[in-house]
């Protein structure tokens, strides 16, 4: 009996969470003539036409490249600044440490909505407005506190004794970090990079306010989707969903630990 209920719950939950995903994949592959027929839930044939048109004719491909570019910039900056900070937070004892962590937690909760509008004014002065680099900088600010907190917890999982042992054998502190701690922390860091990628990939408000012609995929879709026929909307949904699903699959091992301690 208990087993029966478990199977029932399992099925219901799976349908609830996967059903909608299945529908948008199906919709994006359905020929438009089939989509507007009432009686055809399953199309007579599948087509990649909508996806292709969205990518080629409607600027989806360009927006996707911009998205990737923005995300990589955000990851590069936030990791370059966040890893040393995270490392220092774990390995050194100093005053105001908890305060810094608190500030990090707090900046995570400041919405980009608040910053984006006035950032435009600054960007106009710096000639950064409407560039992928500018959006990347803003996304880096959004991702950075997360990187600091997450790397600090990853590094605390690597025993300090290993580093000390390395230093006994003549490595410098930096050498010990590079040769011993980094390789051990690498899988966790890779997972947080992927996670940072998703955060940037999904962010839409700053991306639409800070850039007009160099919009990321979600921002591009937000501005064009309303005006496009339905099947392009579904194609857009599918294009955005696929990488997200792939990323979740890659970082699945870290899913719990990462979201358990991070803020978003």
């Amino acid at each position, binding site marked *: 009996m208990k087993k029966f209920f478990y199977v029932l719950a399992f099925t219901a939950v799976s349908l609830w969470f996967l059903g909608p995903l299945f529908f948008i994949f199906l919709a994006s592959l359905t020929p438009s003539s089939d989509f507007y027929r009432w009686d055809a839930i399953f199309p007579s044939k599948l087509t990649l036409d909508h996806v292709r048109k969205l990518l080629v004719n409607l600027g989806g491909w360009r927006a996707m490249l911009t998205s990737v570019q923005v995300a990589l910039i955000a990851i590069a900056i936030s990791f370059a600044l966040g890893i040393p*900070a995270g490392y220092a937070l774990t390995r050194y004892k100093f005053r105001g440490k908890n305060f810094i962590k608190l500030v990090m937690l707090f900046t995570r909760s400041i919405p980009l909505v608040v910053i984006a509008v006035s*950032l435009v004014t600054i960007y106009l002065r710096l000639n950064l407005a409407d560039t992928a680099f500018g959006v990347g900088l803003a996304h880096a600010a959004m991702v950075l506190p997360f990187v*600091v907190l997450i790397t600090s917890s990853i590094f605390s999982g690597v025993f300090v004794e290993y580093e000390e042992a390395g230093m006994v054998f003549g490595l410098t502190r930096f050498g010990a970090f590079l040769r011993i701690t980094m390789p051990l922390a690498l899988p966790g860091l890779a997972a947080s990079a992927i996670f940072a990628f998703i955060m940037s990939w*999904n962010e839409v408000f700053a991306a639409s306010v800070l850039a007009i012609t160099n919009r990321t995929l979600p921002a591009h879709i937000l501005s064009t989707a309303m005006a496009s026929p339905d099947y392009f909307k579904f194609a857009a949904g599918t294009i*955005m969903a696929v990488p*997200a699903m792939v990323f*979740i699959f890659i970082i699945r091992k870290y899913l719990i630990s990462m979201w*358990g301690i991070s803020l978003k």
Partner: protein
Amino acid sequence: MILPAIVYLLLFIGYPIIGTFQLAFSNPKGWFENFRYIFFSKDFQNAFLNTLLLGMVVIPIQFVFAVGLALLVNKKRKGYKTLLYIIAAPLALSDITAALISYSIFAPNGYLNKILLSLNWIERPIYFFGYWFKSREFLVIVLTEVWRATPLMFVILLAGLQSINQEYLEAADVFGFSTWKKFVKITLPLLKPSIVSALLIRTLFAFQIFGVVWLLAGRDITVLAGETYYWYVLQNNRNIASTYALVIALLTFIVGWFYIGTIRSKHLEEGVE
């Protein structure tokens, strides 16, 4: 080593916030003129109420679902790992994607109508979108948000459940506690820090709700972040947009302060340390 990160955050978060203040408080007629303008506008009042209302409807539903799902997965019966990934599936989706997904189901030609029509349960398609169907739009937004953001709460709660020491529950078994009593007397109190953080994270993000509402309802149903976007992008008015943004910031600040005060001990002294 921490300095570069702090400087960057000051530059890209601190400085623009000052800019937001400047923009919001600048109006030729007086400092508070922008605030007076929005506070007395029907649009602001609606946006404010809608944002609160959405939060108040969505968050409790999500919470109940998330607790139920977390308990189900935490039983660790056969296939629980698969179940975990299935529930986590929407986790990485953006709100825009989630909105498009739910549009594919609730559109006039969407799958819900197709299925209901082919089952002969309805004779004409049901319309969910448009100014005349505001309450239906609201329902669709709620469903979308529940679908999209329940996994987030679920993961936080599951992490909390997994950190509970099993010995407490085993001891309760010895004393013959019922399942319900175990849940109320042991699991729930021990889960409290996770519950608090899950609820408050959701509350923080509820003030920023934007993509789902904007794509599905446009300005039929207004929300604070949506109005910020509208005033900036469509009306080209930075001052009013900044004023809206500042209201969001203020609400976030209040909730965030409460949040940090409550979970400070848990997260800073155990979690991140």
